[in-house]
């Protein structure tokens, strides 16, 4: 999804990973369910199958500036050529742009035999086992993880493989980790646990040398008219509201919920504040924060609705919370719409662009840098 880094690293020097506790070897990653870059260009990989998060040092690499970025066309065709498969047999699970080299990294799977219904997400269909990056010429290469400095932290009590999503007949384990975000020295990991209330936000200090805190979370879904504790966060970002770090999280059908980060304490159950209902029958797929004309905005990509822009100032100004059924399809904080359907993944590419992975009307998947001025 994206690197939710509050301060994007824009240094010119070769980054030195100061983090201790990394060992060199082959990380035993089973599924690259979610990717995010952290401080000094460390790559976090959320692995739902293993119920673990990895921090991978991608090594010294020159810092790059973004200049006139070009779209990469036919992403699936190129990945298929790289993996020796048909384009219909490769799938992209997540996208993260390296804040140092500005190169896009994708987690990719080969084979999508399990696809059988419209609400399946990539992680429901297959396990991503390959990390791919594109060079500036738009050529993909497999990132060799056979011997890299890395650290691993096992999450306590991720949801069992045997638990099923009744309405889509999949294992809930695919949603053990749905998104990652780094803020205030910690990695926040959204997903599902075996706790009484399954929806969970884990917090892991980085470097991974401390305990993992587990907070179960719930929120009111205005479209469903009830409090939900089973539905996982689909995408979130860390953002300061009134000077305090909050997590702004979006869920299926599409409530926007805020959680104050300092309130996410170990072994506690926390109710979020539902500040918006942005339309049912929709997965919010990804979220980024961008800056235009000196103001930061939140951009949400959706499975079935257009791009949405939310002004954090409006969230700060919104005093209430949605606690009653929303009968008008949308409600709460106002949002703007922009064209941009078919966008599955997004990340910031420098200050002036957001790179999107999008399914075009003609069927191709491309990776396109969109200038933030168009929003």
């Amino acid at each position: 999804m994206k690197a939710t880094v509050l301060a994007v690293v824009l240094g010119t020097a070769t980054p030195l990973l100061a983090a201790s506790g990394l060992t060199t070897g082959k990380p035993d990653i089973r599924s690259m369910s979610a990717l995010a870059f952290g401080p000094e260009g460390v790559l976090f990989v959320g692995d739902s199958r293993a119920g673990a998060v990895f921090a991978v040092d991608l090594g010294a690499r020159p810092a790059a500036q973004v200049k006139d970025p070009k779209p990469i066309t036919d992403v699936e065709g190129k990945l298929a050529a790289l993996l020796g498969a048909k384009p219909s047999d490769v799938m992209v699970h997540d996208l993260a742009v390296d804040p140092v080299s500005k190169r896009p990294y994708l987690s990719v799977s080969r084979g999508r035999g399990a696809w059988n219904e419209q609400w399946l997400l990539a992680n429901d269909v297959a396990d991503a086992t390959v990390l791919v990056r594109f060079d500036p010429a738009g050529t993909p290469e497999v990132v060799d993880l056979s011997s890299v400095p890395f650290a691993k932290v096992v999450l306590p009590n991720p949801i069992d493989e045997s638990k099923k999503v009744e309405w889509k007949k999949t294992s809930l384990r695919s949603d053990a980790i749905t998104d990652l975000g780094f803020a205030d020295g910690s990695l926040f990991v959204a997903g599902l646990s075996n706790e009484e209330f399954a929806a969970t936000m884990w917090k892991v200090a980085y470097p991974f040398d401390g305990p993992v805190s587990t907070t179960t979370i719930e929120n009111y879904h205005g479209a469903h008219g009830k409090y939900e504790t089973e539905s996982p966060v689909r995408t979130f970002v860390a953002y300061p509201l009134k000077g305090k770090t909050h997590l702004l999280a979006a869920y299926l059908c599409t409530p926007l919920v805020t959680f104050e980060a300092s309130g996410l304490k170990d072994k506690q159950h926390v109710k979020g504040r539902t500040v918006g209902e942005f339309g049912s029958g929709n997965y919010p797929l990804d979220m980024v924060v961008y800056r235009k004309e000196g103001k930061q905005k939140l951009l949400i990509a959706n499975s079935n609705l257009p791009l949405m822009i939310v002004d954090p100032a409006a969230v700060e100004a919104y005093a209430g919370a949605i606690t009653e059924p929303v009968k008008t399809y949308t409600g709460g904080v106002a949002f703007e719409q922009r064209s941009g359907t078919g966008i599955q993944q997004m990340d910031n590419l420098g200050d002036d662009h957001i790179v999107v992975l999008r399914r075009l009307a003609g069927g191709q998947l491309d990776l396109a840098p969109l200038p933030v001025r168009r929003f």
Partner: protein
Amino acid sequence: MEAPAEGPHRVSLIGLDEATRRSVADAAARPRALAIRTSTERPEAPGVAGTYSLDDEGLHFRPLFRFAADVSYVARASVAGERLLRTFSAEPPAPRDPPHVVAFHPAAGVLPANALRAYVQFSRPMATRDTARHVRLQDDAGREVPLAFVEIDEGLWDPGRTRLTLFFHPGRVKRGVAPGERLGPPLVDGRSYRFVVDAAMADAQGTPMGAPFAHAFRAGPADREPPRVDAVEIAAPAADGTLSVRLPEPLDRALLQRFLRVEDAEGARVPGTSAVDGSDTVWTFRPDAPWRSGAYAVRIESALEDRAGNRFDRPFDRVEGTETPPSRALRVPFAVP
């Protein structure tokens, strides 16, 4: 090129001269010497990802993923001023032989009219989806017997998904219960039946059986008598150490594999392997270690049932005061001389 349907894949450049061998000693030079792509039409496409190695035989490329049968690959070699080009695909996988039913139990031609369970053993793990739609019981006129089995959409499978357990609807087998009173028992004494698994029943990979399976049997009188412990016959171990236990009547095959065991004089379990014959009336046991002379016993767990659900310690259902009192001792002693 080695791209068999089974086993590892590789593309090798063999018979290298010394100069060529030196030129590919540097790993960075290897992709230029030997490159594999998915098509000739798109030279800008990246090469197939994989690893290179150099040994006495030559330069080898092993793909990250096995080559596919439905993708055309081009291997280009460029060594010592010579260019070689080969197109290839992986060998298609051998057509899978369809799955089939290995056995149906109880295998006897006559089943008690109040039979409780049946087992269908398949040749490999099966798709469990909609199992109930693929199995049925037909009467002698070829009509489906409605509600013959307890309907469980995905069926009751063993963990390996090769054995399907069917329950004749207990509400129809047990006397004095509403469905049985309304519909009558699924099997009627004296009538003939066919148990059918239809041709669409598929294995876990989706390969259907292709041909239906049918097992014909007749329903006999209902069995409402518990099996009797005093009718269990144990023969002394044979020369190869195999102990044979003849049961008073055919017992439930799956339960036999779990609820019979051999104990020594102290009551400790004797480790070994057991088997049930095709008629479900003879249980054999071979200990892991040779028998020692002394006292042993065959232990019958009370959960062991005959084909109609009668246990050694009580019948499946009974009308008060009408049946023989069941036998109680669940340990049958025997001695090894």
